[in-house]
């Protein structure tokens, strides 16, 4: 496991990571091993993250080494799309049994590789390590090496057992596996001055194909998409690209940066969500390609395409304006940069009553403020109850979020639209935004809402669960309003650091008691921000709040 921990350290040190840039040296060393709270929420594990990142490689066999839980419970549950091979959709697992756990699972793993080669003969096999074999010391690197030599075929170890960390760490470890064993091992048949890589895009719902026609029209070739609709050979020869685009999720930043370092492939971080973002990304790709020797006329051609596509998209969206007049949207997303969607929604005439900023960076927040005004409602982390209250009080007409919160909206009889991973519609590029707006229209004007909100004939007014829940919350709020002590206690109870479970009160007290001035100081005294580091921003906001009300502090 020592090489694995070295890799993890390396990944944590990623200088390209925006979050890292905000951390001190010592903090960075600690890395983002976000310790989840037992009995708190549960996100995916590192293995999950690694699989998400690599499974969209469509012609590869993905073999999961572990007991049935890791693959049996989860296979075939992602909506990436393939234009060719479908072997990526096949679930392969060693399904370790008790004997393997006692005597070691390496033999079974080797045999499994052989079986796959004999029956499916894929261009490569990716072997995923999981917790149980990692604990009993199965050396998948050695097995893969032996298999590689024996069968003369790439057998790639992906060392990301679930318990080393979060999904995001798994994404990065997957990237490391590609860097170490795949990228640069083959040569493309030919190259052009217009070859690019797209990194960190998984082609969910076939989204990439919404943008690809524009590339085709411009003569830009996607040498490799890592990993959406990707083929093994493409990734193996992706080191010959002239430039790369890192799609906004930071999942594989290490791949982009190390490819720049090793093969001098410049990259930028961009997004195809939102009209302006799409245009910016196209421009950026053009600039990088021209800087690497493509003819400058490419830039002009790109501008022509952008002008045409933007005009078409805005015209299509404008049609919805009269229908969206006065309609309000609550936007709750985890990963996707909220602001890139905000612009399009506003253009369509929708009012945004709030947007989540759970995973947004400082700059993201600034952009949201720019777009939505200073009083933009930014939501950090909410309980279902709070979310429901938000829906009600802000009188939003529709909620856009990931699947996890869908039941809050639906059971509250509110229109809801999935904008996260499991969605069935593709929202990328110019056409994607138009689709999104059309979907919102469909959801808003569905007559079902009128039907389902109608009370049963025997129901007394105000006696359904929603009314009760609202009353309950109002009562609690009212009780707090008349009881400043309880209100203060409730305010202080708010969790700031979720990893180390530190609340607002503790941090405020520490700041005052030790006259702290920065996040490092807070960490030293409270352990807050000692985990994933996401709360360092919230802590800075506390500093700002305390500075803003010096009188109140003095009065206490």
């Amino acid at each position, binding site marked *: 496991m020592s090489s694995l921990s070295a890799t993890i350290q390396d990944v944590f040190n990623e200088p390209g990571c925006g979050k890292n840039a905000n951390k001190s040296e010592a903090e960075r060393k600690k890395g983002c*091993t976000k*310790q*989840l*709270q*037992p*009995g*708190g929420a*549960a*996100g*995916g*594990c*590192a293995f*999950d993250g690694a699989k998400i990142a690599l499974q969209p490689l469509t012609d590869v066999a993905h*073999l999961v080494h*572990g*007991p*049935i*839980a*890791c*693959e*049996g*419970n*989860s*296979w*075939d*549950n992602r909506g990436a799309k393939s234009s060719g091979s*479908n072997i990526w959709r*096949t*679930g*392969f*697992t*060693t*399904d*370790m*049994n*008790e004997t393997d*756990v006692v005597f070691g699972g390496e033999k079974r*793993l080797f*045999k*499994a*590789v*052989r*079986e796959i080669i004999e029956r499916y003969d894929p261009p490569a096999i990716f072997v995923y390590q999981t*917790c*149980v074999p*990692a*604990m*009993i010391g199965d050396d998948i690197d050695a097995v893969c090496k032996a298999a590689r030599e024996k069968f003369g075929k790439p057998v790639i170890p992906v060392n990301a*057992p*679930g*318990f*080393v960390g*979060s999904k995001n760490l798994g994404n990065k470890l997957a990237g490391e596996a590609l860097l170490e064993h795949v990228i640069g091992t083959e040569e493309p048949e030919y190259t052009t001055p217009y070859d690019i890589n797209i990194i960190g895009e998984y082609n969910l719902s076939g989204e990439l194909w919404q943008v690809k026609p524009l590339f085709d029209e411009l003569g830009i070739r996607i040498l490799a998409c890592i990993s959406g609709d990707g083929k093994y050979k493409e990734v193996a020869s992706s080191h010959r690209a002239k430039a790369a685009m890192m799609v906004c999720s930071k999942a594989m930043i290490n791949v982009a940066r190390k490819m720049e370092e090793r093969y001098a492939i410049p990259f930028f971080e961009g997004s195809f969500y939102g009209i302006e973002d799409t245009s910016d990304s196209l421009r950026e790709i053009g600039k990088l390609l021209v800087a690497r020797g493509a003819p400058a006329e490419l830039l002009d051609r790109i501008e022509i395409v952008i002008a045409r596509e933007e005009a078409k998209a805005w015209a299509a969206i404008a049609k919805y304006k009269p229908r969206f007049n006065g309609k309000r949207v609550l936007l709750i997303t985890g990963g996707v940069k909220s602001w890139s969607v905000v612009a399009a929604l506003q253009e369509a005439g929708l009012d945004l009553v709030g947007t989540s900023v759970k995973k947004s960076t400082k700059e993201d927040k600034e952009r949201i403020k720019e777009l939505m005004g200073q009083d933009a409602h930014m939501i950090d982390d909410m309980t*279902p*109850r709070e979310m429901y209250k938000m829906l009600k009080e802000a009188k939003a007409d529709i909620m856009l979020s990931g*699947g996890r919160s869908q*039941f*809050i909206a639906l059971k509250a009889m509110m229109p809801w639209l999935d904008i996260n991973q499991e969605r069935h519609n593709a929202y990328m590029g110019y056409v994607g935004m138009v689709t999104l707006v059309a979907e919102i229209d469909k959801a808003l004007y569905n007559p079902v809402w009128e039907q389902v909100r109608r009370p049963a004939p025997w129901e007394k007014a105000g006696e359904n*669960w929603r009314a009760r*829940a609202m009353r309950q919350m109002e009562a609690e709020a009212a009780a707090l309003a008349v009881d400043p002590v309880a209100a203060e206690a409730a305010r202080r109870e708010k969790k700031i650091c979720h990893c180390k479970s530190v609340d607002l009160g503790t941090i405020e007290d520490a700041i005052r008691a030790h006259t702290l001035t920065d996040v490092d100081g807070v960490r030293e005294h409270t352990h807050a921000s000692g985990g994933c580091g996401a709360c360092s921003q919230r802590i800075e906001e506390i500093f700002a709040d305390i500075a803003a009300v010096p009188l109140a502090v003095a009065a206490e």
Partner: protein
Amino acid sequence: MAKVTLGKKACSVNPLKMSQPIGGALAFMGLRGAMPLLHGSQGCTSFGLVLFVRHFKEAIPLQTTAMSEVATVLGGYENVEQAILNIHKRAKPEIIGICSTGVTETKGDDVEGFIKLVRENHPEVKDLPIVYVSTPDFKDAFQDGWEKTVARIVDVLVEAPKTQTRRDPARVNVLPGCHMTPGDIDELRTIIEDFGLEPAFLPDLGGSLDGHIPDEFTPTTIGGIGVEDVAAMGYASWTIAIGAQMRRAAEAMQRKTGMPFRVFERLCGLAPNDEFMAFLSEISGRPVPLKYRRQRGQLVDAMLDGHFHIGGRKLAIGAEPDLLYDVGSLLHEMGAHIDAAVTTTQSPVLERLPAEDVLIGDLEDLEKLAGDKGCDLLVTHSHGRQAATRLNIPFYRVGIPMFDRLGAGHQTTVGYRGTRTLIFSVSNLIIEDHENNHEPTPETWRDGGHAANSVIAH
């Protein structure tokens, strides 16, 4: 009848099987105010959660002790402690159900010991019901996890009756296997109540995952059987177990309370329901209600109508043992031949399946068998969709997970009515397939093509 063989492959391809702990967790979800907790790494829980959300289309309560690499090596006391305290504080559950996973079983955590210690150290959870089940991922399957968990709940929560005379002849306990959907539970409840009996279901997924609108915001289960109702089960007069997997729990109930039990290995089909009705009539002392006499007639009629379509079909079926036995037997009774049968784990019912062989294997095995034997109907869970496309034969979904169609929780196969529904659905599927793919054309007759063959086959 059937010979049971165990697959010999090192690599399981397209797993049919799911893990034990999530089977156990689902059983806990049939208790009111419950929070199932998997003692393991976060991923194990998150995969289970996603699976159930996609199947039931409901918010699902499921928690993790979030074992990190270090915690796993050192042992999980602190994580179990923190998880219990956190859940107690935030979710205020009426019961916490803990299932172990491969990760913590490999280390060998003494969870019972942990729980004792937590209770000693924290008076606030001294009396909180906590049930622990050992369910390593590297052994057995989903159905076994459910089986062990229900037996364990009976052991821990059911109270031995203080006096035998207080037994209530109207009350019966029902222990449904994991192949019963919330819709099945609802149907069973109605049937039993129609005999004037009061059934208590353990677990009662009918109350918790049936897709109703909740009463309030609660992170725990919102329906199901309450802990105190489980405790009082000892005062009923009979235990009815449904599925061979529930024998273990029924025996536990008998050991603890002296209650007689009867196992109904299947409740889909004419004969099993006749037996069931006769039994209910006997223990309730009431004649079979008119409603069910009519339903029986309707089922017989449906069987007559359906046998034209199902008869002679070459069936490939993959499911957990009890479900396999239940649905497989019914389709066999309708004239289908079970030519390919694959299951996930050992069970005594497998030998009784009206087929030559049953293989403990995966969907690759099922697909291969189906192809080799020329099967023309595939029955399994949603993961079989890729095989069905490749085989190009009609595909009927049963079991968990069913993520690509709506209404999984309401699919009903028990009772005369449920059986009738199943026969109609499968028959219609076959009719549609015939219309789309096998209508005779001059060519098919000329060269004895597949359309002609499919009619003549068997």
